[in-house]
């Protein structure tokens, strides 16, 4: 046996993949909000615009927990754990979302780095053992659409009821969150234009824009 052969570790292949820029680790994002009363109209429009809606829009029902851990830097590291309540057999998702780059006027969308990994239910325990603290949690319920590489979600945010069954959760607001996002490898900025055009087509119904959380009166991401 040839022991001199260097072993190809997973880390090596991961760095190689990163170097060749095939990992979709950038999220291009536009956000907006629509009132409950107007959501039907928006859904109708989306059904007209998006791909494969002949079988009706795809629904989803997710539960997200946001964990934070304080390291050496003053900024805490935020990690999100999300699971599908309606698809119990699907893996959980652990996700890191970087700082949103709003850019100037010429940049059509928010760009933020996003790394996600599938995991199982023990991830919560694992994160707690690591020293993470759960900041907040919420439930998202809504509809998903697809248009090419773009993913459009129209969802309502619910407060997590302490000890209450998930059916009797209380809505956070009187509106739906609308998100238009694409996960792409680094440097594929052309997709931003497509997103802008698509958002333009939804324009009177919902205003999809680059939302700066820091300027919002209420702090904290959704």
């Amino acid at each position, binding site marked *: 046996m040839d022991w001199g052969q260097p072993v190809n570790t997973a880390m090596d292949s991961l760095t190689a993949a990163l170097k060749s820029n095939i990992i979709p680790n950038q999220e291009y994002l536009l956000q907006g909000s629509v009132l409950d009363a107007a959501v039907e109209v928006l859904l109708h429009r989306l059904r007209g615009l998006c791909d494969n809606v002949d079988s009706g829009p795809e629904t989803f029902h*997710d539960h997200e927990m946001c964990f934070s851990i304080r390291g050496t830097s003053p900024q805490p590291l935020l990690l999100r754990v999300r*699971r599908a309540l309606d*698809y119990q057999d699907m893996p959980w998702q652990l996700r890191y979302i970087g700082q949103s780059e709003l850019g100037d006027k010429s940049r059509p969308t928010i760009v933020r780095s996003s790394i996600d990994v*599938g995991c199982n239910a023990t991830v919560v325990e694992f994160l707690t053992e690591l020293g993470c603290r759960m900041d907040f949690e919420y439930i998202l319920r809504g509809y998903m659409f697809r248009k090419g590489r773009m993913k459009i979600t129209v969802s309502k945010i619910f407060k997590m009821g302490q000890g209450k069954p998930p059916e009797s959760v209380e809505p956070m607001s009187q509106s739906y969150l609308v998100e238009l996002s694409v996960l792409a490898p680094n440097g594929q900025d052309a997709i931003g234009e497509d997103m802008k055009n698509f958002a333009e087509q939804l324009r009177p119904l919902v205003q999809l824009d680059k939302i700066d959380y820091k300027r919002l009166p209420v702090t904290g991401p959704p």
Partner: protein
Amino acid sequence: MAYSVNISVEAPIESQIQEITYDGQEIYQAPLSMSENLAKMAQKIDFARVSPDTFKSEPMETDKPDDDAQSKDSAAFQAPQCLWDSVRSKLRNSLTELCVLQDVLTIAKEKRYMVLDPVPQEVPEQKPMAQIYARKKALSGAASVLLSAAERLRTSQTEMARNRTTPDFHIELLRLRQNWRLKKVSNAIIGDLSYRTAGSKFSQMGMFEVTKAEDDASTSQASSPPPSPGLGPPMPPKPPSALRVTVPSELQGVAYIMVLCRKDQEDLSVSANLLGSSAPSANPDVHWQQKLEAAQNVLFCKELFNQLAKEAVQLQGPIPHMVVGNQIMATVLPGIQLIIGLCHSGGGGESKRGIAPPPPKGDHDHVLEHSLHQLLREVHHKNTHHPFPHPSSGPLGPSKRRALAGPTAADRYQLLEMTKSKTMLEEMIEQTQHFFMRLRAEYVLDTIAKEVKDPLIVSHWNALNSPTQSCVKITIITHGYEVIGKSSLIVHVGQKSMKCVCRDGKVMHLSYEPQELRDLIFCQIHQHQINSVQALGRCMGWQHLANSPHLGIGPVEPLGNASSCILASPMGDRIIAIRCAPQAGPQVFIAHSPRKDFFSGQLVKERKWENLGGPFKEVRWDKMEGKNFLNKMELLMASLTSNS
């Protein structure tokens, strides 16, 4: 000699002497600058002096210096006085006027003695007649435009009313728009008949142009009253469409994919000729819907063939696939070739391969052609129907298996397995292989059922099967003895092999050679005979002495082994031995013990030895009475059963 004397000439002192020091030195005042000079002179204006002659004429003013000229100084100032006088008088006058104005305003403000009244503004002179004329002209211009439009509408209306039979272009366009994708590019209407929106990734464009068949309609309208033009095909007199669609020449005509299965090499050349067939040539007068559908079908067939050809080149089989012209040849099973051809004819003299006789109908395989179409549709569907991620923040694209691979720690092998997918050609070959396997199994079973009459062979094909697997249940029974003995086995027909599950649970794997199945069925038939004889014997009270499914004695069988069993009569005095060989058929021997007639010989002296059993004698089975083997056996056993 007179010497010149130096005379110093000094300029007179223009500056005033300010001071003379004691040593006689004079200190001069610095001469005035221009502005100082001006200021000095301006100071000299005596605004207070109100001479009555100021109100007099100007020439009077000039006389004034004469009165004032007393001193040298005054004379010196006389000129500036004169110069400034006009300024002074003007300023004065303006002051007076301002004072008057102020007084007037003060009085007017009190509104007791004087009131300021607005003077009525002079109205700009209006020329009513000119305006009326201008309006009239504009109105008449607009009216003429409207009138001409109305006239044009009326003529078109009457035109339409006159030839009501020709359908409206716009109505037709609306119908076209309901079924096809159209867009307007500058002045033309361009449609797209490709399957791109349905998930196709074929590079060829499917553009067509929509035009108004104006001239065409008028000519046909003119020529329609006479029965029909000679060159036109005998079509029912249908009103011509107001629409004309122009499809690119490469999509014109009729195309189809033909799948042929050939058994031997010789036929290949024949089939090659058959493929370049000529279908009914494209009719120029067909309705646009049919025309577009045909063009779309051409595009679809081209994509299908293109894809298959690409796969055929890439696939590495033990026998490489061949792509020649518009044919793909693949070896399915030894000696069996699958030929997939693209037939495209018509399309403006583009027909290939010259004139060849049309292929004999029924020669090609409709089922495989259909599944080819189905396969490409599935590819299209898969291209557009990606699974949605759950939870919703996940990336679009990966399948559920991929999503689960991480958390379930899938290994390299499993991941590699996930990436594998069968190409269309591979699936096609598998289906063809299965098709042939099924055909062979059917043939074998049918021929055996025809050949072998004694035990009846009944085969039930499952109605529900997949394109690559089907199942047949074979039951072997003897007519009239169904209750006594029934052997059944199940054969799963796969792609390149068959699996037989026998009644006793034995599983046998057979290759694609039909002889193997045939041999197996024959073995099963003879086992069935032996088994049912035993069952029959039990029913008749006979005793089962021995049984061997694989008899080691006797002549060697070409396939399998002979099986045998030995039965004894209820009294034990008769013994029947049955030997059943696949090739030779059943042989029956009987032995008596003791014999009814005993003659003592040299070897056997006493009768008791006869109880050991006598020699077996073969029964001439073909002379036996009975409809079939079991029937004969029953009769034999009945005759041998002694009631003593």
